[in-house]
């Protein structure tokens, strides 16, 4: 299962990286969203994978590492804030610069 998990993380990362290299702001923000999925999964994986672990004390003898979970939570929230900012900035750039490409209109 670890293998497939890692493959998934790798593919989402690859997709995200490809998109952040695009010229349109929308694609870049999409790419950032994908990257944040990937990084959240990655960060989560730093606590290793546990199935049917206890989220609440006493539910089970096996515990998933809670610390990475807390870190991922923080990262998700920060990621949301950042994505929102980037998206609105893309709108602002469209308004100010007249196009929606990261480097201005190069066509």
């Amino acid at each position: 299962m670890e293998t497939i998990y890692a493959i998934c993380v790798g593919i989402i990362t690859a997709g995200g990286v490809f998109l952040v290299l695009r010229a349109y702001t929308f694609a870049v923000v999409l790419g950032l969203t994908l990257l944040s999925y990937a990084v959240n999964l990655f960060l989560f994986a730093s606590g290793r994978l546990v199935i049917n672990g206890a989220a609440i004390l006493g539910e089970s003898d096996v515990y998933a590492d809670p610390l990475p979970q807390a870190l991922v939570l923080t990262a998700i929230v920060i990621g949301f804030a950042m994505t929102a900012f980037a998206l609105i900035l893309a709108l602002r750039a469209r308004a100010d610069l007249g196009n929606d490409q990261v480097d201005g209109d190069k066509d």
Partner: protein
Amino acid sequence: MLQHLIFFPVLLPLLAGIFLLLPPLHGHVKRQRVAVLVVNILLLVSAVLLLQQSIHHEPQMYMMGDWQAPFGIALVNDKLAAIMLLLSAVLGFAVHLYVFGGDDQRGPFFHPLFMFQLMGINGAFLTGDAFNLFVFFEILLIASYSLLIHGGGKQRTQAAVHYVLLNLVGSVFFLFGLGIIYATFGTLNMADMAYKAAHLNADDIALAKAGGLLLLVVFGLKAALLPLHFWLPRTYAHTSTPVAALFAIMTKVGIYSLWRMHTAVFGDHAGELANIAVFWLWPLAVATLIAGIIALLASQTLKMLAANLVVISAGSLLLTVALNSPQATAAGLYYLIHSTLMSAALFLIAGMVQEQRGQAQDRFVRSRPVNQPALLGGFFFVAALALIGMPPLSGFVGKILLLQAAGDAADAVWVWPPVLISGLAAIIIFSRAGTTLFWRVQGASQNQVLAHPLQIAATVLLLLMSPALVIWGGGSDRFLFVSRL
């Protein structure tokens, strides 16, 4: 109260930011200005107290939530942190004075954002926890994104698009790095990491290396390490004057983090992980310096010149990190203080020149004269001398420290030529800039813009730091030599 002193540099701007959003401060320019001034003075006072504490005592820790060290988040005050805090307080104070000249009215929420920015910077200096460092990085970044666009304008928006998107990608790598660090070290406390670095499983070494080097990428992006520095010049040159001046300390956060992470955690003691960054930093720092020199010579406006100088100072500072000796760190610290304050001053001067010259702004072309040639010219001259590294101002001490730190003949071959040539390039471009901006004039000025007395006061305050750093440079001995990082 004093046992909470370490927390003040973060708490004060946080509370200030909050209260600035609430009545009775929200929407009242004067009250806001008084409030931020008071907070700034408190920040200065607490920074001075912290510096004193750090000189006379061992590093002090403040444990958030009263949880003991590797488990809770620790704020750590040592000499290095205290100096950085004082620097940010002085810079923040000066920039605030400047802003009272009217820049704070050019868009909403300037003061609260400024406060959050200071909070992020100070938090990054204080925290002893790797993930908390990420959080403070994000605070200072999101605040900087918002401040960057203050005042609006096409160029600013374009610069913001680049700066924001690039840093977002950078943050992703920060988290990848932290994930690996946690997966191998099993801890987030940096002191704990430093302790564990030497005892890592052999199987985990390569992984930990990858994690540590990913953090190098992130800090390098912040510190403007080639090839990650390209975002800097346009961002700094195109944002509003006070924000650019404040940003002068932002690259230093990157340098500081390198010291904390790569000199301390991955330091000499770290066994197989020792000095993993040095191999990469060496050539890249030299290359940064060279690219900075080239860009400096190509500068067409005063703000661009100032921004490229920031790149050069980043290159020099990265060299001190790469040199990796107590002497080099001391050199770096002195140079860091000097270059931050003087670059900020130059940005402020550029802003005043820009406003007085009308259409020509701060471009190096013949144009109408500024309205206060003696004042601005004098400011420019002082800042230029300091930044070129000519006596009697602080730049020369930094330069000598740097050259001496690289004294070992093998290192000198790499360090000396770019450092010396950067001085020459600065002479060339500054003399061109100064003679053009202030002396190559035609016609009479068409506007009545005069520098606001507080803008002048802010600039004078920053510029005075330079002779102060020289005259009392001898006393710097006590805190520049950071015995343990």
